[in-house]
Each structure stands twice: as structure tokens, then as C-alpha cells.
């Protein structure tokens, strides 16, 4: 793939705009709250698009296209099972606690609801995860640019990290959120032409269905037996592992996405943020799953004349992660090629900036201010927030270089993140809906859940991974193993939290008002039109989601 002047100009314009946004926002940053929480002043349409864009990083865009090519339409489960239900739940049931408690972060909510040790455990694990995720995103960007454009690895790392550093340092969270919205439009509009022309080339959806194996174009039909579908999953493990544990654990407790709803102007907007975001999320498979299906269709004998092939690895296997870049190279001429490459760069930068801004908030409020330097001036915490933004970027760069030297570190880190994230939703579910849950229960539940996740991984083996204790049980696919690990960790956390809570003293009701469902006044929306109320909106979205699942059954 070779870029020309017009392509470089488009990339340059994008860089100028994202940095420009940072300079424009800089004048509005007067306090640590402006920098780290946007002072809860962001309009609904921006928080909603930023909510979905924070999750629209490179792993999502490139990874889902790759999954579409490898597993077919079953990849839509990550959206229609693994996202929409949890997003609606977050908006209807959980945002009133996050927003109403006036907590500035998810760990701070844990401190109000439980105690400092639970907050500390969550804050430290989250801070480590975000900064390493940011580094992995940076590594993946540089590696991709090196592979497809033959750009220098070091220059790609330093230029992209430098740009993210400039706009997050200048404008903080607001700047990152504004750029996420710009990046959202760029990714959607930049990749839409690719979907249209490649779908036309593949002969439309009917032709795709005719040319591919039926299990590639049916989302549920072949899930009654794990051996009958490309993911190697039974529908029950998908529903519990992905649809409940992993999905609710991510969308309802990960501060990276929840933070975007917490900066809305009022409670109504905070609740509507994930629900409005669910609308584009529902349609996202058109941009990130369909191209994968099209790519594999174009490789069928009847369409070989189109001249497209997914690249192969050194061992001759299909390199699915290169599906999207290779489609861009195949279909986009000079000009729009620059748009496609910029969309890829935007997805990496969006993921990195999201991680860095969540990291600096949690570090400043939940680690530095809580455990190291209390009761200093607001200016002090503003300076710390800015300083830690730079430190976060530098750690990300270091992580990117470590990832370059040790290929396995990516897998290792993703694995550890899974151990920590898997059980988390049980803590929140019990904490928000059972007032008897105690701080000791929450803390030991999290520890037990994480240990159970590690043990399950050590006892099971799938596609050569896991089984580091002993190979006690074999699972067909790595994805199935991830769902089982998450499910087991959730169950251990859930029951450990209950048992320890029953043996320890709960907080008095007075201290739990606004933090627990039964002790919190419910928001009233009777005066609003039905389409502005979260419950009817959520129900409509759930009905459409169920309909989509039936249509592509």
C-alpha cells in the first residue's frame, strides 16, 4: 500500500484538528474538575457518542472485522447479546447511583458504598489495566503502520503518542471526549464506502448467504451444539458468559465507558447516555462485522475473479487481523485511501486517549488524593492530573516497546485483565441492590473471584492456552474458555461476598442513602415525553435487539 500527497494531506488535516481541539478546550480548563471530570457540563449527544467511541478502539474495529471473517455472523453476539442489554441496564438502574452519589469515579463510588480497601483494590487494578491497554493500543498502531505502510515503528509510536499527549494534556477529559466524537464520525463515514462497494462486489447479502456455509450466516441456529458452529460455543455459555458476566462487567463497571455518562449535565442525560449510545451500537455490525463476512465471501471460488484475498501468515494460515487493512488497500484509491488510513489511526488514538483520561482521573482522585497527599489546593490536583497524563503516556510508550520485545505480553495482559474484570459486576450488583453487603464482603469477594478466574484458567486448556496448573479439562475454543473463566469468577465473587457479608457488620441505612436501590429515591420522569424517559426508550431498544436476533437467527 502506497500513500500519495492527497492521502498524507488528509492525515495531516486530522492531526491538526485533534490538536486544535486541545488548544480550544485549554482556555476552559480552570480546575481539577474541569480537567478530570469536565465539571459535568457535556451535552447529551456528545456524551452518547463518546460513550460508544471510547469502546471503538482499534481492537474493536480491526478485531471485529477479523472475527467476522473467522466466525461469521456469530460475531454480532458481541453487540446484540454482549452490549445492548447491559447498556440499557446501566442507564435505567445503575446511573442513578453513579451520578446521584456525586462520585467522581467508579472507585470513589466503591469507597462511598463499601470502604477504602475495596476502592484501593479497584483503583490500582484499573489504573494498571488502563495504562497497559493504552500501551498495547499504541504497539498495535505502530505495528500495523509498519506492516501496511512501511512506516518506521519508532516514529509511529512517538508521533501518535505525542499527538494524544498534546490534546489530553491541554484539554483533559473534555478534549479527549470531543475528539472521540470526531473520531466516531471519521470511523463510521470513512469505512462506510468500503462496506458499500465491497458488498456490491460480493453480490449483496443474498449472494453471501448462498456462497458461505450456513453456520457463517446464522447467529443462533447452530448453537445448540458447540461442535456445530465456528466459535465452538453452546448457547448457554454464550448467554451466561458473554451476555451476562462479561457484558455487564464491562459496560456497567468499567470506568473508561461509565466516565462518559458521568460527565453529562444532569441525571436525566446521564441515564440517557448509554441508552442513546445503544442505537448506533446496535447498527455497528454493519461497519465492523459485515466487512469480515464480505472478505471471506470474496475468497469463495465463484468470486475469485474479484482478486481479493485475506493475507496469510508465514505459516500459510489466513491472517484475519489484516482483513480490514487489506480491504482498504484493495478497494480504496488515493484520496479516500487517506480517509481509510486516518480512520484506522483515529480508532487507535481514540482507544489510547480514553484509557489515558480514565487513568489520570483514577490516579489523581482515588490513589494520589486518597492515599498520598490529602487536603491540598485544587490547583495542586490540577497540576498532578496534568503531570500524570504525561506519565501515563510515557508508561504506555514503554509498554509498547515491551510488547514489541515480548509478543506474549499482549496475551498475558489481556488474560490478567480478564481475571480482574470478570468478577467485578457481582460486587456492584450486590452492592447496589442488597443493602446488607459489607465492605469486607466486597473486598474478599473480589479477591476470591480473581483467584477463581486464575485457577480456572490454570486448570483448563483451549487452543494450546491455559492449563498451567494441570490440563484438567479441554475446551474447544479460546473464546469459550474466556466465557467459562469469567462465569466461574463471577459465581465465586457472588457467593463469597454474600457469605462474608452475612458474617460482618453492615453500614447503617443512613450512610447508604443514594447508594443502594432500596434506600434511594427513584428519579421521576412523568413530566417528560415518553421518548425522553429511560424505561420506554430502553424497552423499545430491547425489542429491536430481540427482533434483530430473530431476523438473523
Amino acid at each position: 500500500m502506497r500513500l500519495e500527497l492527497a492521502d498524507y494531506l488528509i492525515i495531516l488535516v486530522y492531526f491538526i484538528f485533534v490538536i486544535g481541539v486541545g488548544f480550544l478546550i485549554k482556555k476552559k480548563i480552570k480546575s481539577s474538575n474541569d480537567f478530570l471530570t469536565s465539571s459535568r457540563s457535556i451535552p447529551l449527544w456528545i456524551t452518547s457518542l463518546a460513550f460508544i467511541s471510547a469502546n471503538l478502539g482499534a481492537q474493536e474495529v480491526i478485531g471485529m472485522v477479523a472475527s467476522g471473517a473467522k466466525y461469521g455472523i456469530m460475531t454480532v453476539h458481541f453487540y446484540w447479546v454482549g452490549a445492548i442489554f447491559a447498556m440499557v441496564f446501566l442507564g435505567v438502574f445503575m446511573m442513578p447511583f453513579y451520578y446521584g452519589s456525586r462520585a467522581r469515579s467508579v472507585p470513589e463510588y466503591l469507597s462511598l458504598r463499601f470502604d477504602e480497601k475495596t476502592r484501593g483494590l479497584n483503583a490500582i487494578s484499573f489504573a494498571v489495566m488502563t495504562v497497559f491497554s493504552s500501551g498495547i493500543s499504541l504497539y498495535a498502531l505502530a505495528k500495523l503502520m509498519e506492516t501496511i505502510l512501511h512506516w518506521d515503528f519508532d516514529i509511529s509510536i512517538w508521533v501518535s503518542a505525542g499527538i494524544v499527549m498534546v490534546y489530553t494534556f491541554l484539554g483533559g477529559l473534555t478534549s479527549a471526549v470531543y475528539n472521540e466524537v470526531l473520531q466516531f464520525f471519521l470511523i463510521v463515514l470513512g469505512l462506510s464506502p468500503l462496506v458499500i462497494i465491497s458488498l456490491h462486489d460480493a453480490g449483496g447479502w443474498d449472494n453471501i448467504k448462498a456462497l458461505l456455509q450456513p453456520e457463517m450466516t446464522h447467529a443462533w441456529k447452530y448453537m445448540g451444539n458447540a461442535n456445530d458452529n465456528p466459535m465452538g460455543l453452546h448457547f448457554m455459555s454464550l448467554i451466561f458468559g458473554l451476555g451476562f458476566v462479561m457484558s455487564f462487567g464491562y459496560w456497567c463497571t468499567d470506568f473508561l465507558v461509565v466516565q462518559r455518562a458521568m460527565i453529562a449535565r444532569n441525571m436525566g442525560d446521564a441515564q440517557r447516555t448509554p441508552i442513546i449510545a445503544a442505537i448506533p451500537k446496535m447498527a455497528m455490525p454493519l461497519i465492523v462485522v459485515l466487512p469480515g463476512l464480505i472478505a471471506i465471501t470474496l475468497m469463495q471460488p465463484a468470486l475469485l475473479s474479484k482478486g481479493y484475498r485475506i493475507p496469510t501468515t508465514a505459516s500459510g494460515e489466513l491472517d484475519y487481523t489484516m482483513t480490514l487493512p487489506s480491504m482498504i488497500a484493495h478497494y480504496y484509491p488515493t484520496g479516500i485511501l487517506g480517509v481509510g488510513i486516518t480512520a484506522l489511526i483515529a480508532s487507535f488514538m481514540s482507544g489510547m486517549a480514553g484509557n489515558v483520561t480514565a487513568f489520570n482521573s483514577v490516579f489523581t482522585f482515588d490513589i494520589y488524593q486518597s492515599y498520598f497527599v490529602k487536603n491540598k489546593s485544587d490547583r495542586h490536583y490540577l497540576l498532578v492530573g496534568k503531570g500524570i497524563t504525561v506519565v501515563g503516556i510515557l508508561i504506555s510508550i514503554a509498554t509498547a516497546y515491551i510488547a514489541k520485545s515480548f509478543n506474549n505480553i499482549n496475551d498475558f495482559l489481556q488474560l490478567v485483565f480478564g481475571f480482574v474484570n470478570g468478577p467485578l459486576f457481582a460486587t456492584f450488583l450486590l452492592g447496589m441492590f442488597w443493602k446488607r453487603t459489607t465492605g469486607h464482603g466486597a473486598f474478599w469477594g473480589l479477591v476470591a473471584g480473581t483467584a477463581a478466574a486464575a485457577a480456572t484458567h490454570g486448570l483448563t486448556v483451549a487452543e494450546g492456552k491455559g492449563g498451567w496448573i494441570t490440563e484438567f479439562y479441554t475446551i474447544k475454543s479460546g473464546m469459550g474458555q474466556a466465557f467459562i473463566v469469567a462465569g466461574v469468577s463471577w459465581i465465586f465473587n457472588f457467593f463469597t461476598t454474600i457469605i462474608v457479608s452475612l458474617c460482618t457488620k453492615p453500614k447503617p441505612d443512613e450512610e447508604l442513602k443514594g447508594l443502594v436501590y432500596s434506600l434511594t429515591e427513584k428519579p421521576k420522569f412523568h413530566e417528560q415525553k415518553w421518548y425522553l424517559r429511560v424505561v420506554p426508550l430502553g424497552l423499545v431498544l430491547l425489542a429491536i435487539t430481540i427482533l434483530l436476533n430473530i431476523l438473523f437467527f
Partner: protein
Amino acid sequence: MYKKLNDLQFVIGLFFSVVSVILLLNVMLGTNVATKLNTLTGSGFLVFGLLMMFIRSRK
């Protein structure tokens, strides 16, 4: 102008308008045969960009 630049809708509109100009200029000045996709995308971006800026100015 500076006030307008503080509005995200205007910034997004301006970005897509500038990109569309590059795409359309590339079609007009270039010798590339694959111009149809650039023309259609450039036109689409221009309409979207102007619409975003127009919505902003109507507020």
C-alpha cells in the same frame, strides 16, 4: 469565528468539509482513473460537513 470553533458540531463540519475539498481537488487535478469513489465520497462528506455547520449556525 473563534466562538464558532468552540462548538464541536462546527469543528466536525469544518473537518469533513476540508477533507471533501481535498478529495474533490484530487479528482479534478489528478490523473487517477478511480475517481468515481472519491467524487461520491467527497460530495457526501461535503454535504455532511456543511449540514453540521448549518445546524450549528441555526441554533
